[in-house]
């Protein structure tokens, strides 16, 4: 099974409703107000948000549609081109990350979204071709967060720099960059504690982490990836907005798309913030991270 087959398989599970819904809607009746209402409803149920749903509805309303199967592709095309128009320019390839040594990747996100797991998965991908990976265990708050990362490090053959629970996360980040630099590592992935974007002290703490590592390398962190959970509702927009204020976000990774959540909010976020999208999490195992491709994403959103 190819990488994209798996991606489609995973995503298709989550998009059954939207697709069969569209089928029923579009091809059994002609576009009238009721149908447009329902179309909007289906979009809303994939968490795209009311604004994007309305916009897409207008696109459909303004297109003359002959209610025959021959027009089917046309509808899917409108949807797909709308999605791709927004998301295609945002595709970010992990293979094309800037050549820094070490390349420092800082991971951010609210509690429980999948930051630590994603670091494990990213470590696996980036560690191909004998690249040297080290993890910085800067989540010093949550119980056993360090143990969790340590198990991931073992699993994918990465090194790990850690400190005792309750230590200053910025100091752990500093220490790990020092270690990465002195030992010629290719990538440093820094795990951080989950923090809700409306907690000022925790957001300040995050800012401090970014500042402290700049003391060693003024360009670091070279990447800051924000992890979003596909089951999250409209709050995801606020999450992006607030983290972006603290530090430039260079990539978004959306997790838990193996569930029934459709991740439609990515559309709204892409449209609003135009931030690069790196990958999608499709499960809890080390290989369950798929690179982001807008065609497949829109396809999987539509078809089952």
């Amino acid at each position, binding site marked *: 099974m190819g990488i994209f087959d798996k991606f489609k398989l995973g995503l298709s*599970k989550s998009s059954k409703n939207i697709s069969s819904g569209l089928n029923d809607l579009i091809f059994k009746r002609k576009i009238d107000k009721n149908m447009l209402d329902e179309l909007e*409803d289906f979009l*809303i*149920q*994939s*968490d795209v*948000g*009311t604004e994007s749903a309305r916009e897409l509805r207008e696109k459909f309303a303004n297109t003359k549609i002959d209610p025959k199967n021959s027009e089917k592709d046309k509808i899917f095309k409108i949807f797909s081109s709308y999605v791709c128009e927004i998301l295609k320019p945002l595709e970010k390839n992990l293979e094309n990350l800037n050549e820094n040594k070490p390349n420092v990747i800082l991971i951010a996100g*609210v*509690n*429980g*979204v*999948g930051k630590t797991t994603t670091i494990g998965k990213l470590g696996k991908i980036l560690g191909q071709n004998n690249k040297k990976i080290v993890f910085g265990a800067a989540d010093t*708050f*949550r*119980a*056993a*967060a360090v*143990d*969790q990362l*340590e*198990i*991931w490090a073992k699993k994918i053959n990465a090194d790990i720099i850690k400190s005792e629970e309750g230590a200053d996360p910025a100091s752990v980040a500093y220490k790990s960059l020092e270690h990465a630099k002195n030992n010629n590592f290719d990538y440093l992935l820094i795990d951080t504690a989950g923090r*809700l*974007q*409306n*907690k000022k002290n925790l957001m300040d703490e995050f800012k401090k982490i970014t500042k402290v590592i700049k003391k060693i390398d003024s360009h670091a962190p070279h990447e800051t990836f924000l992890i979003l*959970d596909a*089951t*999250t*509702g*409209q*709050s*995801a*927009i*606020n999450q992006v907005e607030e983290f972006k204020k603290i530090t430039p976000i260079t990539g978004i990774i959306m997790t*838990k798309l*193996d*569930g*029934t*959540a*459709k991740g439609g*909010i990515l559309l709204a976020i892409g449209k609003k913030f135009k931030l690069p999208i790196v990958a999608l999490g499709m499960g*809890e195992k080390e290989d369950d991270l798929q690179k982001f491709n807008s065609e497949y994403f829109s396809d999987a959103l539509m078809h089952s």
Partner: protein
Amino acid sequence: MFENLTNKFEEIFSSLKKAPSLDEAQVDEGLRKIRQALLEADVALPVAKELIKNIKPKAIGQEIIRSTTPGQMIIKVVFDEIVKILGDTNSEINLNAVPPVCLMLVGLQGSGKTTTAAKLAKYIEKNNKKKSLLVSLDVYRPAAQEQLNILGEKNSIQTLPIVKDQLPIDIAKRALNAASLSGVDTIIFDTAGRTQIDLSMMNEIKEIKSLTNPTETILVADSLTGQVAVNVAQEFKKAVDLSSIILTRVDGDGRGGAALSMKFATNTPIKFMGTGEKIEQFDVFYPDRIANRILGMGDVVSLVEKATQDLDEEKIKKTEESLKSGSFSMEDYLNQLRQMKKMGGMEGVLSMLPGVSKIKKQMDNANIDENIIKINEAIILSMTKEERLDPKIINGSRKKRISSGSGADTATINKLLKQFKMMTNMMKKMSKGGHKDGIPPDILNQLK
């Protein structure tokens, strides 16, 4: 995101002329906006739709309290409905079983189960004076068992020692044995996160449930959850028959629509909420707090509440004054009847009038038919202003007109007029301090 909803409402309704009560057009327009507000607050679409459908008939005909707008009234009606749906729960955790009493936490990945397990143990210790044993059945996520045991140690809660490579079902058996040996009252089982479509993982919690026979099977759900909330709650309910829900991350900025979705779709009470990462940041669930967030219009709600209260106070004051001055009119009587309806009958109003504790007792025993209030209201509403101020002018032909307007027969109208006359007489007496004997028995009979 939605601060402007109130303004949008004002816009829509400013063009509509003020009416005494909400009409269908106003309600439709208002509910359309409300629907959007609900969706933006992450209320699941089918739930939002159903809710709107149920609210509509309740909103039409709703009296518009003076100094509020139709939009504000609709918001208040919706708010009350949301509180009603979220509420009517008790926050008692069910510990009624032969010890060790088992509680089981289930939910999606990262929803907050492990943290909540520790919080719940602490809560039970404090409020129910029972000791718990914390047991992690999460053998999948790296260091998940360690996480729970560290939380236990830090907070002096017993935990089950970790044995490597043991299956969840075997850990559960070991926990049951350990608990009966050590005499612990309660076992709290933390389980691994799972998606509701993962059949083998869903089977696992079914097996654990039938082994441990928990008094509570609790869904731990993130308050930031989007549209999937309904499906998640329904599927977990189907699999393990949830007995309650605990909402986490209420300290976040989420609008909390997921709470409404889950409660509405599964009718499973939401008992507690997590308000932070620390163990003591755990609270019983407050429906009005979440309802406020979902609508995001707390100001409007309190404004309407205040207006209602002011009006009630004013009306009572007016009645009091009329009483004192002896100018009690049909108009006042109508006011009084409406107050009665709102406050759950005669008793409510009478108890607010000065010096009537004795009368109140009499009324309690008198068994007054609440239906009469409604009929009387209809009769008075069918009178002209003139007639209300001076009922003496109501002659035969006027009675006929009132009868056809109110649907009440002439006999009933006569009864009301007689009753009113007696009432005013009594009021006069009362205002002179002569109410020691309470309501004359013939008036009470009239009201029966």
